């Protein structure tokens, strides 16, 4: 048996995993990164639009700071997020982006002087300060009060990923690709690494570590139409779930993006609307202002996606062989802007749909319909990134439920989260490695490897023909699209859970035609699909139990946000490996500790909230304290600290300097 020892094991080489690895390696810890694919091909590369950080360099960002970013994030989450984590995040984000600039991310910069932009379909000229010339620029994104989304044209994720990956290569991080984690090695309530399959040779190996971090990205591929890459199958999260000790948080919180292109589901970035593009219906009418007079096309994603589906249901969709869709019109931005700032969008539209979006009028309109995009839920962690139940197991990035996003994530907050949480969790994980040994016996390691070895043997011994794994997978995806989508209701969800459970049972009878332990694509499907089904069941079952609507989770039979009963985080544990259902519990969010107690988001449906009496009480407390401290002449940092204290490692809590205002 091959055993590989290291201090820090990082599973996943996207932005989050690589940034963690840089952090642990910097502390002198031996660090190994494992990835299904060469790390620069991770799905982080696909992020187009940008990264939120409250630099406030652009005139459209003046007045922005941590407080404004915090409020946007909490409202966006529909009060489902962990507010302490949100504070940690907004305080570190400006540092993360400045670090990345030094690592070579060529952020788009400000030119001092007049600049033409499109706001509310009108061409307008804004005047950038000469003093801001050469600082990092930002664009508008949904659900934000200020222009805060920093970008490199429309290839932000690509340049960020290359910046961080190149840094990891510089630091000689041991990166191994075409390696798949099958299960986690654990004893008592401590994690010691992972059982890994080499995807070229098929060989099983044990990676034993003091601490293990899962940064395996989203699980969008449990859905049929998704913007996610084909490798986003949630197998890392499933490995955590299958320990029976680590838990998932809020799996039902699934984001649907308003503008994937039809039919391929490839994303057209929110930057399209951020830069001034608009949605139109079958009559060419711009309909979003009818529903959302204030934020219009740039309300938060959950709201825009629902409004679009509502409009399609009202008969205003454009019929097509692939179902009804709406139009995204960016032609109004002009060819020059598109060819400079939205080039990938233009390329995608041209290649996959034969449309040039810079062509004026209906000819350039792009067919779009909401589709699965982001998993707010994931491996539940504490603010340090560590699992509250399985020590030595960390998680960050989209794979985790650190709980920055609650029930809806803001565009641009995700790539920001990957690097910010990478910095923070990487630091806490290093500390853990320095204080703990990998005190595990070989018999236990062998047991975990043997388990996977035998499982694969059992799969290879199955007769062929009884069940087809591709058919089971397809059915799962259809169920998720049709029954666990944007509009949900109890009865349909119940049906979804029942059918998914049946699929899970059937999947254990799927055989493979090629009886080889080596590179064998069908074998991969056969051991992956049951793990995906466990995630799918967790999503559907949690959605069924949550009888309210919050953020992206919308129940037609329970349309109000119910703070009285549901200001809670869903916690999933799969204790019995033989069972087809996990155990689901809930943990309450403490209103009396919130810096910003629940209220109205400022967009979406008004008056649809069952209020919690403590919300008002806490709001009064907050207002009184703030008024008193302001009178005493305290600054915003002192007031914030009094309202809700939070910790950060390293020097990440230092104040951020801003153009024109210094450290105010």
């Amino acid at each position, binding site marked *: 048996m091959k055993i590989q020892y290291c201090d820090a094991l990082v599973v996943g080489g996207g932005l989050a995993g690589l940034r963690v690895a840089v952090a642990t390696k910097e502390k002198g810890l031996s660090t190994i990164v494992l990835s299904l694919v060469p790390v620069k091909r991770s799905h982080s590369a696909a992020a187009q639009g940008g990264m939120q950080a409250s630099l406030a360099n652009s005139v459209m960002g003046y007045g922005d700071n941590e407080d404004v970013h915090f409020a946007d994030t909490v409202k966006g989450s529909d009060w489902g997020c962990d507010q302490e984590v949100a504070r940690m995040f907004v305080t570190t984000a400006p540092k993360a982006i400045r670090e990345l600039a030094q690592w070579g991310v*060529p952020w788009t910069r400000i030119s001092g002087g007049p600049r033409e932009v499109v706001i509310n379909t009108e061409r307008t000229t804004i005047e950038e300060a000469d003093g801001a010339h050469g*600082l990092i620029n930002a664009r508008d994104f949904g659900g934000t009060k200020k222009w805060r989304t920093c970008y490199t044209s429309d290839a932000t994720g690509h340049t960020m990923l290359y910046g961080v990956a190149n*840094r990891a290569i510089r630091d000689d991080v041991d990166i191994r690709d075409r390696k798949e984690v099958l299960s986690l090695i654990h004893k008592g309530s401590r994690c010691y690494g992972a059982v890994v399959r080499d995807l070229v040779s098929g060989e099983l190996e044990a990676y034993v570590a003091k601490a293990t971090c899962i940064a395996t990205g989203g699980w969008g591929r449990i859905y049929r139409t998704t913007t996610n890459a084909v490798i986003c199958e949630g197998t890392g999260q499933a490995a955590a779930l299958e320990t029976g000790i680590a838990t998932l948080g809020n799996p039902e919180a699934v984001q649907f993006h308003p503008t994937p292109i039809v039919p391929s589901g490839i994303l057209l970035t929110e930057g399209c609307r951020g830069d001034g593009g608009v949605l139109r219906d079958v009559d060419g009418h711009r309909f979003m202002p009818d529903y959302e007079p204030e934020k219009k096309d740039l309300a938060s994603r959950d709201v825009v996606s629902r409004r679009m589906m509502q409009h399609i249901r009202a008969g205003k969709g454009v019929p097509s062989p692939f179902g009804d869709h709406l139009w995204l019109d960016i032609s109004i931005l002009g060819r020059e802007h598109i060819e400079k700032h939205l080039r990938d969008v233009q390329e995608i539209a041209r290649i996959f749909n034969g449309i040039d979006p810079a062509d004026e009028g209906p000819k350039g309109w792009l067919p779009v319909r909401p589709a699965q995009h982001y998993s707010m839920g994931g491996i539940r962690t504490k603010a340090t990134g560590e699992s509250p139940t399985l020590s030595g197991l960390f998680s960050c990035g989209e794979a985790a439920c650190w709980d920055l996003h609650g029930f809806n994530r803001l565009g641009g907050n995700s790539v920001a989260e990957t690097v910010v949480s990478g910095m923070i969790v990487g630091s806490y994980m290093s500390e853990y490695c320095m204080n703990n040994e990998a005190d595990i016996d070989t018999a236990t390691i062998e047991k975990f490897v043997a388990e996977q070895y035998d499982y694969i043997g059992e799969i290879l011994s199955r007769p062929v023909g009884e069940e087809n794994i591709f058919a089971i997978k397809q059915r799962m995806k259809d169920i998720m699209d049709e029954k666990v989508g944007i509009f949900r209701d109890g009865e349909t969800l119940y049906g979804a859970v029942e059918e998914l459970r049946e699929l899970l049972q059937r999947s254990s009878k799927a055989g493979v035609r090629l009886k080889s332990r080596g590179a064998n694509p069908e074998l991969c499907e056969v051991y992956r699909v049951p793990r995906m089904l466990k995630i799918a069941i967790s999503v559907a079952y949690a959605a069924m139990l949550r009888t309210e609507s919050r953020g992206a989770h919308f129940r037609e039979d329970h349309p109000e946000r119910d703070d009285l009963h549901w200001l809670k985080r869903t916690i999933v544990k799969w204790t019995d490996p033989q069972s087809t259902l996990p155990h689901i519990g809930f943990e309450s969010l403490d209103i009396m500790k919130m810096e910003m107690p629940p209220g109205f988001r400022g967009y979406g449906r008004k008056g649809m909230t069952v209020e919690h009496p403590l919300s008002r009480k806490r709001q009064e407390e907050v207002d009184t304290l703030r008024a008193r401290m302001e009178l005493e002449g305290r600054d915003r940092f002192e007031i914030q600290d009094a309202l809700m204290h939070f910790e950060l490692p390293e020097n990440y809590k230092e104040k951020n300097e801003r153009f024109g205002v210094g450290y105010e």
Partner: protein
Amino acid sequence: MSEKEIGKGRTLTFEILKYTPSDPESKPHFATYRLEETPGMTLFIALNMIREEQDPDLSFDFVCRAGICGSCGMMVNGKPLLACRTLTKDYPKGVIRLMPMPAFELLKDLSVNTGRWMNGMSKRVESWIHRSKERDISVLEERVEPEIAERTFELDRCIECGICVASCATALMRHDFVGAVGLNRIARFYVDPHDERSDEDFYELIGDDNGIFGCMALMACEDHCPKKLPLQEKIAFMRRKMASIK
């Protein structure tokens, strides 16, 4: 639309090279598959259909399926292309022959080890910012001329797909040649004001026949680069710079 007319119900013939080098019993051979074309069909869609319905053992690599990640380079009727953004309708004869890209280690069938090659290239050209000291991340970022940031970005768009390498005569002959991708990377750091390396430092890295002087200026790289990087111009520029050092 013509797309629909040609794209409807045609039967496509795929001839795909199958070979598992690690298996002593495996011999390279072409397997033939027939498939009904659907509107807007890409090689990503077609290959997955073949795997699901006809040959569960067929190996190939896709990640983003949107031309962004650089995973899916392969030889399509003799030309290196990103398979995910190659449409079957562009092959009027309906016969598509797929082979793995040369110059890279073959893993299985259409799957090649571009990852290892690119990693080696990254180390070889020291594909990272070189700076003597790091700046405090709480203070205002260093200013960069917008033009320069944009020029850096233009060259940073390379997705390490390896297509320039697979189409390069030098790379096929010389295994240690850094390829257009490596030379472009150098050009990228050359313009980046954050990088403090001098001409001499760059010369150390690429001033030989496996570097800038190995290029025979045939420029198949630029013709095939899916990101349309200005490889010809950048290689010529770097060559002038490097030649002036000698």
